[in-house]
């Protein structure tokens, strides 16, 4: 350490510097390689899915996106992505509608209302919820949530709301098995809750205290501070956090498969069974013959799911960019 700082020892440091810079260059390229490798891998996956799905896109064209058919019977094969795509998007959006208010409540409680000694254990518990494997949510959903949804939500609310004009059809269903779009949305809501709550709590904590204190000083209530100071300041990051949750909801497979009813046909009611892209692929892939139109259609579905998730995550990154240093 001390001899490198001596100016007269110029020759040895020079050689040492070249060795050092060679190591630096090597390290730099290794890191760059690792970064590029991930990008290449991502590109390769998209490309594989696209090439695999090409026969289906070629066979059905744009019809693949709009057709609600899914008929694997030999001789009259016809595949369309509409039902699983709608199922994926509807369950995810419903999950956001159910999950965000609760997540907001948790974040509000943890940052503004809770006494200091409560914040840490409750915050940790929320984060632990994110570590529960999805298959556990699936089993719990099937045995606990599905009968609950059927007996206490679908039967009382479905019957009443189903009598409403026009919108009634959304709630009116003659599916009595309990496995439904709504049950899937509830399971998803619980699964994405910790992500959204944790993001919201973190961004709420980033609001400079002086802003909040000024508002309190002017006589604002807690809710007025939240509505007038915290939310406007963090609005974009909150939306970004919600998008992150949406990204997870879109790709969730096992938990959804357990509770959605796996019916590849158009659902008119949120209490009807439906299916999602991820569960169709998981259910049908093992029995699809290599090079068959069915396998190609499943790969094409995978490509579409990739595309949808990619767009959602890209938007969330873009919205969160100011908060992600």
């Amino acid at each position: 350490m001390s001899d490198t700082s001596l100016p007269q020892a110029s020759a040895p440091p020079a050689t040492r510097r070249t060795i050092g810079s060679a190591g630096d260059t090597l390290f730099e390229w290794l890191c760059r390689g690792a970064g590029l490798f991930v990008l290449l891998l991502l590109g390769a996956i998209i490309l594989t899915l696209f090439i695999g799905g090409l026969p289906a896109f070629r066979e059905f064209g744009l019809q693949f996106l709009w057709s609600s058919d899914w008929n694997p019977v030999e001789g009259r094969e016809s595949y369309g992505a509409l039902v699983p795509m709608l199922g994926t998007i509807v369950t995810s959006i419903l999950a956001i509608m159910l999950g965000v208010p609760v997540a907001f409540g948790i974040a509000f409680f943890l940052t503004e209302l809770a006494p200091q000694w409560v914040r840490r254990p409750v915050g940790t518990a929320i984060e632990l919820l994110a570590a529960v494997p999805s298959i556990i949510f699936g089993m719990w959903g099937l045995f606990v949530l599905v009968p609950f949804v059927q007996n206490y939500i679908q039967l009382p609310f479905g019957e009443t709301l189903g009598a409403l004009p026009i919108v009634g059809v959304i709630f009116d269903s003659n599916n009595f098995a309990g496995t439904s779009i709504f049950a899937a949305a509830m399971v998803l809501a619980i699964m994405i809750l910790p992500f959204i709550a944790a993001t919201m709590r973190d961004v709420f904590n980033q609001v400079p205290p002086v802003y909040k204190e000024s508002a309190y000083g002017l006589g604002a209530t807690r809710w007025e501070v939240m509505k007038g100071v915290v939310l406007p300041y963090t609005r974009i990051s909150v939306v970004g956090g919600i998008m992150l949750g949406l990204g997870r909801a879109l790709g969730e497979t096992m938990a959804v498969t357990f509770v959605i009813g796996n019916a590849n046909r158009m659902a008119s009611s949120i209490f009807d069974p439906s299916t999602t892209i991820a569960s169709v692929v998981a259910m049908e892939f093992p029995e699809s013959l290599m090079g068959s139109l069915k396998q190609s259609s499943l790969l094409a579905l995978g490509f579409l799911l990739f595309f949808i998730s990619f767009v959602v995550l890209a938007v969330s990154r873009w919205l969160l960019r100011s908060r992600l240093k």
Partner: protein
Amino acid sequence: MQNGFNRRSLMLGAAALPMAAAAPAFAQQATITGAGASFPRPVYERWGQAAREALNITLNYQSIGSGGGINQITNRTVDFGATDAPLPAAQLAERNLVQFPTVMGSVVLIVNLPGVADNALKLTSEILVDLFAGRITRWNDPRIVEANREIRIPNLPVSPVYRADASGTTFVFTTYLSRISEAWRTGPGAATSVQWPVGNGARGNEGVANAVRNTPGAIGYTENAYATVNRLVTTQLRNKSGRFVQPTLATFQAAASLADWNKPGLAADLVDLSGDDVWPIVSPTFILLPTNPVADRVEGSRNTMRFFDWTMRTGGDAARRLEYIPLPEAVQGLVRASWSAVRDPSGRPITFA
């Protein structure tokens, strides 16, 4: 004390190890790998356990589904593939495969109707199709009541349950529905997964069994062994001869005894046969073996034939205990004869005895 004991047992173990390795029984243990259908998995596993001792063959069977089994054996990544839906002769020739049956299994209907006893409900083929087509939506439908005058059926909505994953069980069941109903044949049709007009999908035989148990008014179909193990309420069916039959080993065997095996690929068709005591939904399950194994895989093919030769001779009781039907004597001869098509790279038949 504890420590000393552990060390001694460890030393004993170490002393025993070289002796065990020297024993010829362990040195000759061969492994065969297979992949495919989940329908016969319980019986293959039982046979595999027994063969480890008796034949010194370890079976590594992965029930990844018939489609996966066909893919794997076509790529020659396993010693044999297993499928529920037989491959047509042209495809067998194209992929250089020989096909033979191993056991027969049956598909049964399970219901959840409180107060209705096992095998009490009688279903005609018209009622069965209409239940799964959504044309009968409540269990007190006049046609069901008409066919079941002696029992009380609760007035529940009908919830059909089907296999969400593509499966051989679905193939057999929808083949039956297509035989008994023209509307079903031209509508949803028969395949490992079809477009179900109504109902909910559950994953695997276990999933269907659970869904039916949890939903009053549900009706589903499953491989017979799962219904037996889970003590589910099964139904009677009216067969082609117009008789109501119960799903028992006797009615399964009645179907098996009427099968015509003189078909390419030994693809006997046991669905909806006529006969007084015949259960209408019975099907064999098949093994696919390459006719031209590469040099590395010759031993695997030989051991696969040894394994299935042995199961045909001695595995019958194990199969019957799981309510599968073993192959009749005459069919076993046909299976052994079909193996003569399996040749090593120099063109000689591979002997298995």
